[in-house]
């Protein structure tokens, strides 16, 4: 167990180091194969280890690496329980497919070896995050994920826009990290340890007041909102598509953005004691889901549609975990990983076939040219639109069901989720229609073609998962819920309704999906409408929130910093110093007949000053 669990991390870590040093020499496609095998290896080990849990609920196990920070009661220690197992499977499983796809997608890139080194680093970081057995190690993974995203988003660093996007992602995530660090301070100050077991058991024993639990939970939420791109810290994610497309798939689907959802689920013991904070999580999620969905409607860039769609779907997951439906939240995390990875890789295949074109207004009629890409993306489209029996239906419906069942104001949130579902179906249908149907609107010289097998095979596998992935947790057979039960046995889980109410709710949300799809088909069936009214421009530019942030922080903040640096510091503080200095120099001038060179005169000044001060000190008898 010790070694095999460690190997899950060591394999991609080794791949990362190997390729970092020799990636160039190993070359193409060797570097990609090495990296892919490393992640596949981790996945296989995880599958084998996870079997223990499936055959009965094997207890959580820990593996200690070395003594790390004894002052905080934590070691470098891994934890293998059902939740970390599930996350590991998603990360390495979807990650493997993205690696495989990248071998084809990145062909001919001069940074091929470096790219795969970074991909392995991303997987390594994410695995540290989900396998950590304490907050400190989780934070290590958390930050390394930030580093990985920085490196990969700005992978094509010669492009200023990519370099800026990478920096933005890291800095916005750091803002969230402030919340995380503050939460760690509070946790440590209460429990004297950052170990999961100590903290969660302490929380159950009632060592946490409601106020304290609320403060910790809200601060954790700030951190989670940064990583999982929720309001108001979502702004880095749409820019993150400046990285190569497989990176978007990795960030949006398998890794990074899921970290916040995982963290809330992992710390359920704290959120349980803080109902206000938990409700805040759900409200943030609901608001983000609706907000991002409205923006997604008006995007022309195929990757931007998907980026806002990710933000919106993460909102659902936050609604789920906020409503204490941790299983449902994690379930949606999993199904979303399948269909969103598929959508991004499919979009990459489209862009690849269109020689780099990302504007959907210049696509159209691609279904015949790219049959595999089209067929697989169509499955993802139905999955995200909540059409049964595809994967997204089951997980989204469970979240909406739980939220409805909580009653009272929660049902407003259910309404928000329902409207979002309708909008989601609408914008995804719009995307599908503009891309694959209608008259070709390609630029001259663009010859669309299907992508090579290396890229389509992962699409097919993900399409398969997007069809059946939802069946692991249906109201008829809640396999996943039972699987995760041991992790959440100490936490009160909220449940979806059953009986006729469940059927009614499901029917309503399917209806919402069908209305969304139908409306979009009607609108985009025969022509591409001009969409540049005021409302469309407002949505297309994401309510200009980015511009507001840029004005406040990059503009106003810069002005303030300039004032501090070049007025206050140079003229104010240093001006005073220089003033005294020039006075001294004048005094030195008067003394010059007696002394030559100022070093000596300062030497004299030291002694004279010291003697004077000494006399004064001693004259004050008391001291």
């Amino acid at each position, binding site marked *: 167990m010790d070694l095999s669990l460690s190997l899950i991390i060591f394999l991609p870590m080794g791949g990362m180091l190997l390729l970092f040093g020799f990636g160039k020499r190993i070359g193409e496609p060797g570097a990609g194969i090495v990296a892919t095998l490393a992640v596949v290896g981790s996945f296989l080990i995880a599958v084998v280890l996870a079997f223990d849990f499936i055959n009965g609920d094997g207890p959580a196990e820990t593996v200690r690496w070395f003594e790390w920070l004894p*002052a905080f009661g934590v070691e470098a220690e891994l934890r293998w329980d059902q939740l970390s197992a599930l996350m590991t499977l998603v990360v390495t499983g979807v990650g493997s497919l993205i690696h495989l796809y990248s071998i084809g997608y990145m062909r001919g890139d001069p940074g091929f070896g470096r790219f795969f080194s970074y991909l392995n680093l991303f997987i390594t970081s994410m695995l540290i995050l989900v396998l950590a057995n304490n907050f400190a190690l989780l934070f290590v993974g958390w930050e390394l994920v930030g580093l990985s995203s920085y490196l990969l988003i700005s992978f094509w660093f*010669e492009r200023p826009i990519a370099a800026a996007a990478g*920096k933005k992602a890291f800095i916005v995530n750091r*803002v969230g990290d*402030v919340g995380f660090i503050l939460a760690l301070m509070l946790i440590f100050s209460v429990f004297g340890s950052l170990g999961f077991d100590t903290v969660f058991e302490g929380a159950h024993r009632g060592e946490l007041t409601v106020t304290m639990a609320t403060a910790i939970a809200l601060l954790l939420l700030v951190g989670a909102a940064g990583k999982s791109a929720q309001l108001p810290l979502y702004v880095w994610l749409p820019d993150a598509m400046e990285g190569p497309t497989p990176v978007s798939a990795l960030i949006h689907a398998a890794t990074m953005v899921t970290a916040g959802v995982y963290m809330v689920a992992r710390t359920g013991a704290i959120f349980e004691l803080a109902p206000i904070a938990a409700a805040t999580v759900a409200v943030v999620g609901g608001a983000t889901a609706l907000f991002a969905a409205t923006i997604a409607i008006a995007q022309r860039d195929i990757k931007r549609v998907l980026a806002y769609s990710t933000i919106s779907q993460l909102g659902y997951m936050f609604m789920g975990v906020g409503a204490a439906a941790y299983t449902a939240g994690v379930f949606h995390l999993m199904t979303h990983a399948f269909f969103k990875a598929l959508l991004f890789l499919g979009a990459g295949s489209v862009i690849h076939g269109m020689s780099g074109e990302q504007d959907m207004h210049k696509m159209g009629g691609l279904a015949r040219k790219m049959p595999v890409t089209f067929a697989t993306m169509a499955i993802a489209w139905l999955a995200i639109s909540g059409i049964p029996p595809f994967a997204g239906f089951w997980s989204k419906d469970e979240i909406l069901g739980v939220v409805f069942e909580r009653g009272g104001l929660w049902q407003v949130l259910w309404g928000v989720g329902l409207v979002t579902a309708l909008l989601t179906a609408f914008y995804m249908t719009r995307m599908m229609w503009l891309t694959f149907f209608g008259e070709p609107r390609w630029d001259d010289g663009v010859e669309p073609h299907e992508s090579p097998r290396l890229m389509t095979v992962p699409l097919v596998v993900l399409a398969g998962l997007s069809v059946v992935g939802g069946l692991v947790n249906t109201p008829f057979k809640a396999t996943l819920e039972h699987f995760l039960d041991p992790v959440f046995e100490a936490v009160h889980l909220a449940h979806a309704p059953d009986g006729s109410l469940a059927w009614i709710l499901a029917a309503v949300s399917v209806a919402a999906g069908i209305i969304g799809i139908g409306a979009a088909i009607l609108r985009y069936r025969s022509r591409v409408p001009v969409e540049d009214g005021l409302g469309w421009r407002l949505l297309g530019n994401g309510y200009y929130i980015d511009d507001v942030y840029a004005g406040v922080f990059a503009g106003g903040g810069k002005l303030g910093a300039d004032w501090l*640096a070049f007025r206050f510091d140079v003229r104010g503080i240093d001006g005073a110093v220089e003033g005294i200095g020039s006075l001294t120099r004048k005094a030195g001038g008067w003394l010059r007949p007696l002394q030559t060179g100022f070093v000596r005169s300062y*030497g004299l000044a030291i002694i004279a000053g010291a003697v004077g001060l000494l006399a004064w*000190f001693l004259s004050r008898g008391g001291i």
Partner: protein
Amino acid sequence: MDFPILSALIALPVAGGLAVLLVKRDELALPLSITSSLVTFGGAAWLLFAFESGEAGFQFVEKSTWHEPWGVGWHLGVDGISLLMVVLTAFLFPIALLASTAITHRVRQYAASMLFLQAGITGVFLSLDLLVFFIFWEAMLVPMYFIIGIWGGERRVHAAVKFFIFTAFGSALMFAGILSLGFLVSDQLGGPTFDFVELLGADLTRNAQLWLFGAFGISFAIKVPVFPFHTWLPDAHVEAPTGGSVILAGVLLKLGVYGLIRFNLTLFPKAAVDLVPVLAVLAVIGILYGAIVAIVQTDIKRLVAYSSVSHLGFVVLGVFALTTQSLQGGVIQMVNHGLTTGLLFLLVGMIYERRHTRQISEFGGLATVMPLLAGAFLFTAFASIGLPGLNGFVGEFFVLLGSYLSLPGYAIAATFGVVLAAVYLLWAYQRMFTGEITVEANRGLSDLSVREKIIIIPMAALVVFLGVYPKPALEIIEPSVDAILERIEEQTDYVVPEFGSTGDIAVEVAE
């Protein structure tokens, strides 16, 4: 008597310096001085392994009295805190000298100045007699003054004089403080004494402690530098040659913090406890102010200099938060800052030697022509930002979480510094290294040479080692830190907060 290893660590660089001056061949100056500093490093490394970590007191003590009536004597010793500083010093000097090949003018005097500087700094860390300490403190100023003033940039004389005035002002205060302290205790201790260990036995009134704390503290605060005494630092850094900047950032600034820990905390605990709010406020201002001012600098060396103000703010906060974790964090952060900021100055120096400019706007797209240097810069930037796995993280983590136990409000404010650090370093990296090459002069620049790799690799290795496995270093520090805190608890009503005891404060803050 055992071999006087501590004296040897001070004498070796002096001997090396004299040898460089006496062998009148310029081309041998750097090889000789590097050899000398490597031998010293060997001694320091031996000391590191021979040191009994886990013990609190001073080790390898050497003591002989010079002037009995005044209690003046040669008294050296090393504890966990000074040990790390001495090893850091010995580690950085060979590297700083190896990075000095650009110096061609009066190179023998330069190499000798550097070695004398090393002797002075090592002496400051090892002295247990206040007058000897002061002699080393002053002795070290002179070579540093020359290094900036002779081998510096365009405004070197201005910078050197400014450096000197600031420090001399502090020195005058400290000298008065030392003399007052030495004579003040003569009633209690049966005669004046300047021996640190004997002074620990004195019982000073709160009033006396406050005055003496001020006299020592201002001098040390200038050196750190604590806001608002920091304005000499950017000027000195910008003008100093690369080797000088490395030593200035790497160890010279640490002398200030070291002094605060060794003398202000230990000798004047009552005053220290009273003045915690003052120092904590200045530390937090330094963290945020230094970082904000760093963001908009146009000169990369000035940027790194202001980042030092911010980082040293973390150190001072950790020291005066007076908890085990925070003080440990402060000390380990001194080492970390020495490594990362030293490395940043080395890299900036390498770029300067190629382009003879420090203006960020003169660069852009450098990563395409020098990928290795760009990678090294980014690596160091992330270490400085406090990315886990690299050394900066450990110190920041200890300082922030440790400070929260005693100074929650200040710790919360300080946490925002971690965002600002990412802003100023990553923005600088973006402007200098990413994008297309915009200035033609940058197009033909060469990547790292073998010599430059030799400079970077040991530092980078240490950055990773301390980041992943900080335990050995923490174990060296811990007993000394605990001893200081125990002494403060004995002498004052202060109780080092334990976890759990601050729940109420935390809730107040949260509300």
